[in-house]
């Protein structure tokens, strides 16, 4: 089910993912006075990635607030605001700087509904720019999705397209449960002809989408790795492989239906992400697919992931990030024969 909200026509035509995210917050704030944006540098500066650009000007400092520099404090006060009926949208400046807020995330945000027998929902969104590939120095490139995925009570969402950035953020803000909204920072400047002038779709959380259909194997991916997988699928045609690409969009809840339908069609699957492989998101995904599609599988579900190392310095990151060649290698290994 896709809900459609009519958008007022505007002159400016947002085209980048950063602009789509900004537009999503703006529309949500305009429609619902309980939506508040807060974080470090989100006001005057508009965020270090300019995702909150203009919100403070339009809605005032109380609706878009430059907080003191304290992530635990930011998320902790957001919890209190949500307890009192507001809908905070919190920005963490970079993936690795969200860790001071982990206590709040794990001990309160994720379990408030559960511990109060449903009496106290936590309708807040934590926006986290994540992932590498932008030449950032240490602590600016972590992929932290596995930590959030392993915490029951959190939704974990990550758009890979400009349209999804808008649609999923609108849904995240509307959700009565806490959503960790992971923004692939290397796609912030990716463009599309998505336009807020046309009616814009709010994308329900929890549904994967097939970005490219194919018959010989499925690439299961999300966020920053989607464009890489699309490129790999193109390149694989030369080798005679017709690859299907599934964009998960939502890691929690997980869309078993779409993923398994695809794998049952193709009989082979590779999970691709830049987060570390060991105990990473791909471990869970491969296990689920194996449990549900075992009799349809022609080969083991493979993973192409970042190495199991601290995220490397910029000069070495290209060796760490899963690229087209590594994906094609895995695809080649899908010609698996039992006993080999």
């Amino acid at each position, binding site marked *: 089910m896709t809900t459609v909200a009519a958008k007022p026509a505007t002159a400016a035509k947002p085209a980048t993912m950063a602009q789509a995210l900004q537009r999503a917050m703006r529309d949500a704030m305009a429609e619902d006075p309980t939506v508040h944006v807060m974080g*470090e540098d989100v006001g005057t500066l508009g965020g270090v990635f300019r995702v909150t650009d203009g919100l403070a000007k339009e809605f005032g400092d109380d609706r878009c607030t430059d907080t*003191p520099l304290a992530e635990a*404090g930011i998320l902790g006060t957001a919890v209190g605001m949500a307890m009192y009926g507001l809908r905070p949208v919190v920005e963490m400046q970079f993936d690795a700087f969200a860790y001071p807020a982990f206590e709040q995330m794990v001990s309160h945000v994720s379990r408030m509904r559960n511990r109060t027998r449903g009496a106290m929902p936590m309708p807040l969104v934590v926006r986290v720019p994540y992932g590498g590939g932008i030449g950032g*120095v240490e602590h600016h490139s972590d992929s932290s999705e596995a930590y959030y995925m392993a915490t029951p009570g959190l939704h974990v969402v990550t758009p890979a397209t400009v349209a999804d950035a808008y649609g999923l953020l609108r849904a995240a803000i509307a959700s009565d449960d806490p959503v960790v909204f992971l923004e692939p920072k290397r796609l912030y400047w990716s463009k599309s002809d998505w336009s807020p002038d046309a009616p814009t779709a709010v994308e329900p959380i929890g549904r994967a989408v097939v970005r490219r259909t194919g018959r010989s194997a499925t690439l299961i991916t999300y966020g920053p790795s989607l464009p890489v997988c699309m490129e790999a699928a193109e390149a694989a045609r030369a080798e005679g492989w017709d690859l299907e690409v599934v964009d998960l969009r939502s890691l929690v809840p997980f869309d078993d239906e779409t993923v398994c339908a695809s794998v049952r069609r193709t009989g082979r699957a590779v999970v691709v992400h830049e987060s570390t492989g060991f105990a990473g998101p791909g471990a869970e995904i491969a296990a689920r697919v194996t449990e549900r599609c075992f009799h349809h599988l022609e080969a083991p579900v493979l993973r192409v992931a970042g190495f*199991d190392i601290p995220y490397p310095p*910029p000069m*070495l990151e290209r060796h760490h990030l899963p690229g087209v060649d590594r994906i094609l290698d895995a695809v080649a290994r899908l010609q698996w024969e039992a006993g080999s």
Partner: protein
Amino acid sequence: MTVQELPGAASYRFTPPPAWKPRTDPAPLLPDPEPFRVLGTDAAAGFAPAVLRRLYAELVRGRRYNAQATALTKQGRLAVYPSSTGQEACEVAAALVLEEQDWLFPSYRDTLAAVARGLDPVEALTLLRGDWHTGYDPREHRIAPLCTPLATQLPHAVGLAHAARLKGDDVVALAMVGDGGTSEGDFHEALNFAAVWQAPVVFLVQNNGFAISVPLAKQTAAPSLAHKAVGYGMPGRLVDGNDAAAVHQVLSEAVARARRGGGPTLVEAVTYRVEAHTNADDATRYRGDGEVEAWRQHDPIKLLERELTERGLIDEDGVREAAERAEAMAARLRERMNADAVLDPMDLFTHVYAEQTAQLREQAAQLRAELDAEAEGDER
């Protein structure tokens, strides 16, 4: 029973249990209302000329280092550089007040302090250049890794100083943090531990007015950052961060106090970030030129040079000599940074664990094969 129902609740007054006594009268812990100054005051006359000259040489070198490093970002030789131009007095004094056995815990902006303490100017840029995360051996100069997550190095400084004292070693730790960093929980926990343990630590806050775009007024409602010390039971000192002699004196006193077992001190140096947050930041979005210009008039190098000149401690030749030495340092830095970093991708797996795991050996083999294939492809 609620509090109201308790007998005598209306006249209830908190009385501390008998064993609990505040350590000190808070009055001596309070910072001066005005930042402490030396240059241009009577106190300057008594200041050791050798120290002033040393400070001057280091300030001039430091400013040149900042300019050179910023230039290197424009040439793509550095990924990013957070300049400390305007704040050199704090950087240099922090390094110079320490003895060899002491430890420095810098933040990510404090490259200069590390260089002034003796770290190789190129090694100090490893993190920002992007060839490795820290690269240098912290034990060699007793400089902890340049720290990006804000305030997280402060508890380390307390722990290290505490450990040294437990071992009976004469070691003081000096930890640096920005005004924004004082809002982090780690800052407060570090101060509390330091005071409770009476650890030989000095906390230096460089209050340069902004945390990226956020001005101090949105960071704290305290009369000064130095005031924060009082609640933890340690003295707070407020100092003019552009007055190299004053910073040197206040830090020296704090270090001496820590060394003789007097416990920690919080020093707030009031200074200004003249450049943008980093070369990637657009400061015009959040501040006006007039403000920057006013601070440029209160420049740490100008202040010290005036004092040295008036007292006849430096002449034109001395000024030129300092500039020439700084220029030579910059030329060497430029030359060394212009050589491409030699990196071995296999190092990715070398220092994750003391002993490589089977999984990492497997992944290393995978990368080795990829690199070999790449090299073969290049040859053909």
